[in-house]
């Protein structure tokens, strides 16, 4: 019985052309069976879009069949139409620009502050004593809880919005960069001393590259945080921007406008995250050799 099974497996393995091969019959020792694969196997390209596409198709089908209340969930084409309409009459571009400016300046300030503080705290004991504790304290307070105080301090204009976004951004960047800096292998520090590196060369060739993986983790969290902060700020206290547009739409029961706003937020989030990931893959190309 075993001989017949080995013969058939050998025949199927070698293919139809070699079906009559006498080799299979002469095999004496039991054939090595392939182990059952437990991993999910190779990933097919672009299959990750399959789920979202299916959801979109379902949404369209249900709308077309009249199964959805257009007041609660308008049809995809209605959303698209509204989007085009808002774009052509100029409200959408203005709102997007305002929002991008807020998120952009807040992000830039937060990024700079996060890196500068992390370097100062990571490279000197004085810096660590002064900075680290304060940032940890700052982290313990939910940043959005600072909104009332910041409105009183900075007024309800742009400054306070940018300030809140900057805080939301700098915290994860600081935390992850600082952790990566303090986690730099002391053996590399020793190496730098042996090789007679100057302080500047030490920072440039060991500290910064060593801290980059941690920094990128912080950067991605910071990018997500900047959008999150933006949405909250614009929906509470704003007279312009995407969040304001959606807030107004809520008052007038315009679900399609709200959905347009959400789509734009989603696109922003996707683009910025992919951008960070792309940069990360470029900069940390030395790591790829590990995973491949």
């Amino acid at each position, binding site marked *: 019985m075993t001989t017949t099974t080995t013969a058939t497996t050998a025949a199927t393995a070698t293919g139809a052309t070699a079906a009559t091969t006498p080799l299979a019959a002469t095999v004496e020792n039991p054939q090595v069976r392939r182990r059952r694969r437990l991993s999910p196997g190779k990933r097919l390209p672009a299959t990750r879009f399959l789920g979202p596409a299916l959801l979109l198709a379902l949404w369209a089908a249900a709308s077309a069949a009249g199964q959805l209340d257009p007041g609660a969930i308008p049809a995809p084409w209605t959303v698209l139409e509204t989007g085009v309409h808002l774009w052509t009459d100029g409200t959408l571009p203005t709102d997007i620009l305002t929002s991008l400016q807020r998120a952009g300046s807040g992000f830039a300030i937060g990024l700079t502050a996060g890196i500068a503080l992390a370097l100062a705290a990571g490279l000197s004991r004085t810096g660590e004593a002064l900075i680290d504790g304060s940032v940890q304290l700052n982290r313990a307070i939910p940043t959005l809880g600072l909104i009332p105080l910041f409105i009183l301090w900075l007024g309800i204009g742009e400054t306070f919005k940018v300030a809140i976004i900057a805080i939301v951004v700098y915290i994860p960047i600081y935390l992850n960069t600082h952790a990566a800096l303090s986690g730099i292998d002391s053996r590399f520090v020793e190496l*730098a001393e*042996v*090789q007679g590196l100057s302080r500047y060369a030490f920072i440039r*060739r060991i500290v910064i590259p060593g801290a980059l993986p941690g920094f990128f983790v912080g950067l991605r969290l910071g990018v997500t945080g900047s959008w999150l902060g933006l949405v909250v700020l614009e929906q509470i206290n704003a007279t312009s921007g995407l969040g304001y547009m959606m807030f107004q739409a809520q008052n007038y029961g315009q679900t399609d406008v709200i959905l347009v706003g959400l789509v734009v937020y989603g696109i922003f989030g996707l683009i910025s995250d992919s951008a960070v990931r792309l940069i990360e893959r470029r900069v940390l190309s030395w790591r790829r*050799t590990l995973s491949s």
Partner: protein
Amino acid sequence: MAPHAEQLTRPAVQLRGLTRSFDGRTVLDGIDLDLPAGQFTALLGHSGSGKSTLLRAVAGLDHEVAGSGQLTAPSRVSVVFQDSRLLPWQRVLDNVLLGLDGKEAEQRGRAALAEVGLAGRERAWPNELSGGEAQRAALARSLVREPELLLADEPFGALDALTRIRMHTLLRELWERHRPSVLLVTHDVDEAIVLADRVLVLDEGRIGLDLTIDRPHPRSYRDPLLGEYRERLLTALGVTEHHDHHGTDASDGSDDHHTHSRHHEHAEDPK
């Protein structure tokens, strides 16, 4: 270049009453030692005997260690560690050039890589190198600086036996070409005998034995005349022989012994 005789008169490294202690435990106890310029010296000792402490003191890497005594060492010192310590985010050539700059440095870096047999691997990432190749790159990094003193802290301890033998030949060749003073810290008696012209045994914080090995190079592990040195060193290290000298097969006995001492050393090594 200075004449040979003059070179040997001025020691490259001079230690006078060098003492180092950790938490009140004296690791180096008033060591006096001269290493002549251009000499290949090996430093043997049990783990915990203070040989790494001595090396780190000479390298100037013991910032936080309490100690006293006088120490003079050349300004151009290179260190080879047990791990290759290549920066994973820099390509091999950039690793070799760490701490050097200038156009002419790159030429020297390439030449150093070629010298250790890594020509063509300049653009490789350290992760792509085998253990032996990584250690070769580390050797190139230490040589490119034309050191007057080369300190090596068990540089071949993490390599497999075959690679280690090849690295021994390479290190000796490099030494003959560049003639730095070498202080090789090792726990491998055979490594010390095959490579060094002088072997020191560190015992309880002092130099317990200072042995000049007067045999021509290249030396073979099988050289029976080296057996005498081995025996003296093992005795100084406190390894006693269990087998009978008048046994039927002397070479068999010494081999047996040899593996014994190795196992013993490796088992005690905390790394």
